[in-house]
């Protein structure tokens, strides 16, 4: 708001009104300033009623003045220290305490943050001391507005509005009105149409992964192809693996999209531990059983939880349970990865595996079901 309408600060300073040179309404403005002061009575020069203004004692004000000033000085010094500490730690100069090292970055952070805190706190504390010790305590009364307008105002508005609407022809010429409304409809739909190219239609995209017959597998994060012995040397072991793809476009050799849908857990299960579920077909009407899709006690399940897609990365060796650390869906690795606890809708999809001529583990096809979070069309669409 403008600062010129009421100047009642009790500050020492200009006693005499001064003319403002170059402002056209200077003389008028002086009248405005002097009026409220003249109205006040009983020696109280404040902007509000004396009964609403509880002045602080002169003693308290003097103390407050000093205290607030002390805080403002602290804030000033801290502000200077903040600027100085910016230059203490350079970004990446060799031989100096550069912030490229996490330890130094932390010191820099503490120094900058500490001085900033102090600077802010000093200003806040100073202003609070000012408001509580120097300024009066106010208990000003002011009316809440009567909220509904009175009937006359409402009636007048309504009459004015309808007269205007009538005269404009909007109410009396339905053809024009309706065609105007009709013309808005296609434009209202247009933005939705424009967003069509945000993404492709799902089609059967989510039903396929890079796994196919004969595809070798890499240990996740490496380019080392897995052999069956890698698991045999570690009974009850678990290895996380990806399809062996070396696409130069990606630093990992495989896109994140493909990683997200094709990552598997390879688990070695002792022969006696298999449960009945393994003898059921991998999908409805299929001749293959879950057990057929294992190789030499090694079973491969999708690592992505069917709940909302976190990697189900925890494997309890003793119970052969796969646990998703996000929402604790639990799957039984010996029983076709059926859900035994938690919110997942369905078990983990299984990947058929075997070995090739050179003894490397391979997939012999794609998963029996789409991997990842369960979605509406997971059983329909492209199929597997």
């Amino acid at each position, binding site marked *: 708001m403008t600062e010129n309408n009421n100047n009642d600060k009790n500050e020492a300073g200009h006693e005499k009104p001064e003319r403002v040179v170059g402002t056209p309404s200077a003389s008028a403005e002086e009248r405005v300033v002097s009026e409220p002061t003249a109205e006040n009575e009983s020696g109280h020069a404040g902007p509000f009623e004396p009964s609403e203004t509880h002045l602080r004692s002169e003693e308290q004000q003097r103390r407050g003045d000093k205290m607030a000033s002390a805080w403002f000085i602290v804030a000033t010094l801290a502000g200077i220290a903040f600027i100085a500490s910016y230059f203490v730690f350079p970004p990446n100069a060799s031989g100096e305490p550069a912030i490229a090292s996490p330890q130094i970055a932390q010191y820099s952070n503490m120094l900058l943050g500490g001085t900033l805190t102090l600077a802010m706190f000093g200003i806040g504390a100073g202003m609070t001391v000012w408001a509580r010790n120097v300024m009066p305590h*106010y208990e000003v009364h002011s009316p809440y507005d009567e909220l509904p307008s009175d009937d006359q105002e409402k009636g007048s508005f309504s009459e004015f509005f309808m007269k205007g609407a009538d005269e404009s022809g909007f109410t009396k010429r339905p053809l024009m009105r309706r065609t105007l409304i009709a013309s808005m409809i296609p434009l209202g739909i247009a933005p939705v149409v424009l967003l069509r190219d945000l993404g492709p239609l799902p089609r059967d995209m989510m039903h396929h992964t890079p796994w196919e017959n004969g595809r070798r597998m890499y240990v996740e994060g490496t380019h080392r192809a897995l052999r069956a012995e890698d698991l045999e040397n570690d009974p009850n072991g678990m290895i996380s693996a990806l399809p062996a793809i070396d696409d130069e476009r990606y630093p990992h050799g495989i896109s994140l999209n493909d990683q997200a849908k094709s990552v598997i857990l390879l688990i070695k299960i002792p022969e006696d531990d298999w449960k009945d579920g393994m003898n059921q077909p991998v999908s409805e009407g299929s001749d293959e059983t879950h057990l057929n899709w294992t190789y030499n006690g090694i079973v491969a399940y999708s690592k992505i939880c069917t709940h909302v897609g976190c990697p189900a990365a925890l494997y309890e060796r003793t119970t052969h349970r796969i646990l998703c650390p996000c929402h604790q869906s639990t799957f039984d690795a010996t029983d076709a990865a059926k859900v035994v606890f938690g919110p997942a809708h369905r078990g983990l999809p299984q990947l058929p595996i075997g070995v090739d001529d050179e003894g490397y583990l391979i997939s012999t096809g794609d998963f029996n079901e789409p991997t990842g979070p369960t979605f509406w069309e997971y059983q329909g669409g492209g199929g597997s």
Partner: protein
Amino acid sequence: MSKTTQAPKALRGVGNYIDDRFHLAKTGEKNLRKVFPNHWSFMLGEIALYSFIILLITGVFLTLWFKPSMLEVVYDGSYESMQGVPMSEAFASTLYIDFDVRGGFLMRQIHHWAALIFVAALVIHMLRVFFTGAFRKPREINWLIGVAIFVLAMVEGLFGYSLPDDLPSGMGVRILQGVMLAIPLVGTYISMFLFGGEFPGEDIITRLYVLHVLLIPALLLGLIVAHFMILWHQKHTQYPGVGKTDKTVVGTPMFPAFAVKAGGFFFFTFAVIAGLSAFVQINPVHLFGPFAPTSITSGLQPDWYMGFMEGSLRIFPNWFDFQIAGYPIMTAVLVPGLVIPGLIFGGLALWPFIEQWITGDKRARNVADRPRNAPVRTGVGVAGIVFYGVLWMAGSNDVLSETFSIDLYLTTYIFRVLAIAGPILGFVIAKRICLGLQRRDRETLEQGYESGTIRQLPSGEFIEMHKESSAETVEVLSSKRDPSSTALAEEDVDPSGVENPEARKGMGKLRRALAHWYTKDNVTVRDVEPHSGHHLHHSHDHTSQEGPEEGKDGH
């Protein structure tokens, strides 16, 4: 008193220049005279406002270096531990802000802390408004704006959390996508359109970025401005006290006092957030590493305000999942992901209207309720807090299980029971406490306060002296209105013997039942004459008039 200081020449010049063009002297004075009631609880909304300002400032700073790109690069920046690691440009530029931009680490931490405090402050502010009934007419629309701010703030926070593309943040996006996929019929399409294809794709960070830095902040800013302008126009509610009525507000004027207090409070808020950011590490993305859809760590925790969603995803079982002709309806995802937030936010949005429907109260209420004087509302609020709190705690059930060595699955069962039993217990206990406090208020009003002085009567009997409460206390206590409802006032049978048709309809019956529930328990003070109690023994010292509970004001 000294003479009024003349306005400095320069200030007058500027003032005149502006007034010559806008005619603002009168409006300006009126607004500078605007009165703000005093109470510590009225500062909660301020914290939210100031945190938002801090978010805008630090957010702009971060955008100067952040690259919202999912292009995969091999990191070769200053931070040694990550050199040679493939990551998105988003994550690499976040590391750049941390380790190459001086003050960048601090600004990022301030941004994150301010976000947590922004949502926390607005939730606590909202609870204050709820429990004091400050949402009642004429402030229902401002309440709705507040609920919208709350929802947007959560979404804004979630998207911001996702931008650095570190491991936990990417997992947050993955969970979001998983919830989307569960939506019947259109879920797959929504996900494909938002991500520009399959998860994670190459677009999501760029898209979340523009939502996070442009669209949602603009909406938030607009809503916050509207929220504040409505507050300014309608004036703030106040607690009962001498001279404080539905017609008159009492408090501190904007100029000079409130502006300075509020300004000081802004700096305090900033100081606290800066202090946390300086000394309490938050979201150390350089330790988490870049997002990979195949990796995860246990004990993953979202930002606090997403905890209730995480918790409900954890504890809601898959027992109610079913399939229609081979198409899954995953209640275990849909209920936590959509129904529970819908209940919480929908309930919040509707409550003022539900309460108004029950009570039939159509008057403008500028004096806020003391929570105890609306026991059913307070009970409902506590039930809501308990429900939210249980879900929130369930969001860290793995951490709790680990810390207290409780079986993980057992914690899930415990939280399932608590989520249902907790709110009911919370309601009953809170309501009982309210009624107990009402009873104490009535006693205090009737008998004054217990002075702590024991006196022996000539008969040998010991009594405790009661002293007269202050005028302020008497005013506060006797201002209590009994809960009432027009539904109960309307008689079933009118004088001519015709039954009220409203009361026979289903909705009418429901309303009467709710009105009964809302008003039945109450300790009235209407028949109490202050200090009329027969146990009141006046102290000889009549100068002591200060009440024990109500100070002058609390700022």
